[in-house]
């Protein structure tokens, strides 16, 4: 019997669409009844089926409420409006028999009120199964996009840098539970009497007792349930629902093993990397900035390419440009000035092996979006290097095998985005020429790598 009731209850979402369809059909016919003969009779016939299917819906709906663990508060309004819709249908049916006590009411009252009540009832029903904001969420997203609401950007995400300061429960465990458990265990729907929407609720447990066992964590009901094979009836989440991933199971396991703390952070707990790694959002660091530039003028590019420079977008179809003077050993600073026509588009320039001198820095500083500059095998000494501090995106700077004066490197302190600088000189070691802060030393590659001879190598040579 229990199973039958459960089954009938679950039929509710299916059955309800019958009276909805019938009512809409009856209304359509009612609004164009002048086109048909004997429309009244047909409408009445349809309304009879509305009453029959509607009663059945009401019954199955009540069964579903009792069997599935919904809170009365959630279904209350849907339930009453369902009854009102059924009564209105009954009223309309009686009205159509003519000469009854209801015929004092204007005819238009029934179709209009039926239409309104079926819309509201249906919507409330939808809210229960799909969630309150199911229908309105896309609209909200639309409006926030439209109004350029930036609040979304503030959404918290766990990443490599911030994870150690975050509490294990609220930053990792709670989001998993709310994704995979809370839809059945919440204040509105409380299957097995268990609510999992908050830390306190989880501690309280369900009708079968506590789910977290602090004395013997491994025997916690929560763990037992998620570890049962999927075929077991007691396995959670139920077979038909979205399952926990292995990483999620491991993490919940860990959380309970360390005593299901609420406030302790991942750092305090000293969580192992492999446990937390799947939950860290990988930050995709783009090497080149998003500048939203227009397509560069093809004629200008044509003229640059015809001079023998290698000019190429960073990838096919991109508007950011890279230039190399590899095939132009005589290229000098004056020629570089001619490239100012693509000032904004140029993000990477390779002037290695060219004839540029220290005047190059002045010109380079006028290309505001440069990310990478290569000046290897040139005559630069680094005088005026400080001018490059104007380049806010500059990340990588290469000055290998040059006449570089090590003292000029202190100017790098002022570079806003600099990440790596290569200054290896095969003929001398410029680390000896200069004193630099540890921060700077960390980003400068001085080179001078050696592989000392080992004893067995000395013997053989």
């Amino acid at each position, binding site marked *: 019997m229990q199973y039958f009731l459960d089954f009938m209850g679950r039929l509710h979402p299916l059955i309800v669409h019958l009276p909805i369809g019938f009512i809409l059909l009856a209304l359509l016919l009612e609004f164009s009844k002048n086109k048909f003969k004997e429309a009244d009779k047909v409408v009445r016939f349809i309304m009879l089926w509305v009453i029959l299917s509607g009663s059945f819906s009401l019954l199955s709906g009540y069964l579903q409420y009792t069997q599935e663990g919904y809170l009365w508060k959630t279904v209350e309004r849907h339930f009453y409006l369902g009854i009102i819709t059924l009564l209105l249908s009954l009223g309309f049916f009686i009205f159509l028999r003519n000469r009854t006590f209801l015929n004092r009411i204007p005819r238009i009252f029934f179709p209009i009120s039926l239409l309104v009540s079926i819309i509201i009832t249906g919507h409330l029903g939808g809210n229960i199964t799909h969630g309150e904001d199911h229908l309105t969420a896309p609209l909200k997203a639309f409006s926030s996009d439209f109004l350029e609401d930036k609040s979304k950007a503030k959404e918290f995400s766990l990443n490599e840098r911030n994870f150690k300061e975050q509490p294990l429960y609220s930053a990792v465990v709670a989001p998993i539970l709310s994704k995979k458990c809370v839809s059945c265990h919440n204040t509105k729907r409380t299957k097995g009497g268990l609510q999992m929407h908050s830390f306190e609720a989880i501690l309280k447990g369900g009708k079968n007792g506590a789910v977290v066992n602090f004395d013997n964590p491994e025997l916690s009901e929560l763990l037992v349930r998620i570890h049962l094979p999927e075929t077991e009836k007691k396995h959670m989440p139920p077979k038909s629902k979205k399952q926990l991933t292995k990483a999620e199971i491991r993490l919940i396991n860990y959380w309970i093993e360390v005593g299901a703390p609420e406030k302790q952070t991942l750092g305090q707990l000293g969580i192992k990397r492999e446990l937390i790694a799947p939950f860290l959002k990988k930050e995709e660091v783009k090497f080149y900035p998003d500048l939203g530039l227009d397509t560069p*003028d093809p004629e200008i*590019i044509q003229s640059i390419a015809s001079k023998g420079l290698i000019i*190429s977008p960073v990838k*096919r179809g991109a508007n950011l440009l890279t230039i190399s003077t590899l095939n132009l050993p005589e290229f000098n600073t004056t020629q570089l000035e001619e490239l100012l026509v693509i000032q904004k588009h140029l993000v990477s320039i390779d002037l290695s092996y060219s004839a540029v001198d220290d005047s190059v820095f002045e010109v380079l500083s006028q290309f505001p979006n440069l990310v990478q500059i290569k000046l290897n095998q040139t005559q630069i000494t680094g005088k005026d290097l400080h001018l490059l501090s104007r380049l806010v995106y500059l990340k990588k700077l290469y000055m*290998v095998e040059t006449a570089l004066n090590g003292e000029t490197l202190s100017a790098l302190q002022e570079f806003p985005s600099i990440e*790596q600088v290569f200054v290896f000189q095969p003929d001398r070691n410029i680390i000896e020429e200069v004193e630099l802060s540890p921060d700077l030393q960390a980003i400068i590659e001085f*080179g001078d790598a050696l592989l000392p001879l080992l004893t067995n*190598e000395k013997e053989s040579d």
Partner: protein
Amino acid sequence: MDNIEKLIAERKAFEARLNSRRHFLKECTLGLGGIALGSLLNSCAFTTPKAYDYTASRALNPMAPLAPPLTPKVKRVIYLHMVGAPSQLELFDYKPELEKLHNKPCPASLIEGKEFAFIEGVPNMLGPQATFKKAGDSGNWVSNHLPHFKNVVDEVSFLKAVYTDQFNHGPAQLLMYTGSARFGRPSLGSWVTYGLGSENNNLPGFVVLTSGGTPDAGKSLWGNGFLPSIYQGVHCRSKGDPVLYLKDPKGISRGLKRKVIQSINEINYKEFEKFKDPEVLTRISQYEMAYRMQVSVPEVMNIDQEPAYIKEMYGVKPGKESFANNCLLARKMVEKGVRFVQLYDWGWDSHGASESEALSKGFLTKCKDMDRPVSALLLDLKQRGLLEDTLVVWGGEFGRTPMWENRAGIQNSLIGRDHQGEAFTMWMAGGGIKKGYVHGETDEIGFRGVSGRVSVYDIQATILHLLGFNHEQFTFDFQGRPFRLTDVEGRVIHEILA
């Protein structure tokens, strides 16, 4: 019927290619069609200005550099291939359990139904012929045969469970470089130069350097297959003339040579105007290239100018053909913008059938000759910032068995291992690759991969990915269907990507 139609269409396209250079460009050169369509659509719109066609330069120079379809992590590749298949069990894949089984008969269940190149009957197991220590900050295992490599172990990502379905050298090498164990497909370096061109006008885009001997599969390993022949690898020798027959004969001055080449090219161009065969254009640009290479190649191939300590670091042997020389040359070449440098070092086939093939003898010499130059190469690339946008790949065509080889059923007198395709170690280093990382694991005796297995195709897909290609979309139409390097396989090994 479909196939016949495709073949007819291809034939027509081929004829049209002969007729018009423009057509050749649109159809034959990678992605040109798409870009052409893009610019065509652009021209329909009023607001967006027409984009520059970067591929137009390929009309006159099939090696003109092209941007890849995706943002690349690296611009160049140095591929170090240890021909003959080095033993992973003596270099990187530490298996203490195997030591306990040393000289005990191999359990029948391990070899049942398996085919080996030489092993017959029941071989004995062979414990690791090396001692291992954790090296670097990453604490990854490196054997005592590679003392210098320990200095750079934190730069590389190991792939410990690479597998191949070939157990003979030639086919396995072909599979590694052409995606097919049979002849006829373009090599990895050819695909790359076809897709990206070459930056340096005076140097070939795809250079091959060999030491110790020619690899078993021969020149097909750097062949162009069905791609235009300009994309084949140029084999440079590190001893004697770098490129054979490139030097002017006695009594012929460079000026005279220039005139000769000019005349030949004029005649060739007339031939081209008559028949419109793009291979003639290839020939013209190859003559031009050869002329320029007469100066530039000896210059880049000359390691004498390098400072003494650099030469010492690599352990070069000037005037001789050596792997160390080739490693230094590889650095010099990528520094000058060569796209793909392929090194083959022959002599790693440690069966134990002769002294040079024994793990206790010849193998140790090979290790010593490889350890210093490879470590020096990584250090040198790093200090020059070249490791930022260069990919270094190290590997063999397959691995070696945890069993002591018993050729014809009798245990080899010297210590050696047979071929094994099921699991072997490779590593990658450079731009876009995780530092000090290990992906994949073999079982307790190193016989089979148990996790993180990657195929030869996965390696190829990853290399193309780093260069900015989606290996599934990088194709060339031939014989009625689009071909790709990875055929129908391949998965980018995202686990080792930074």
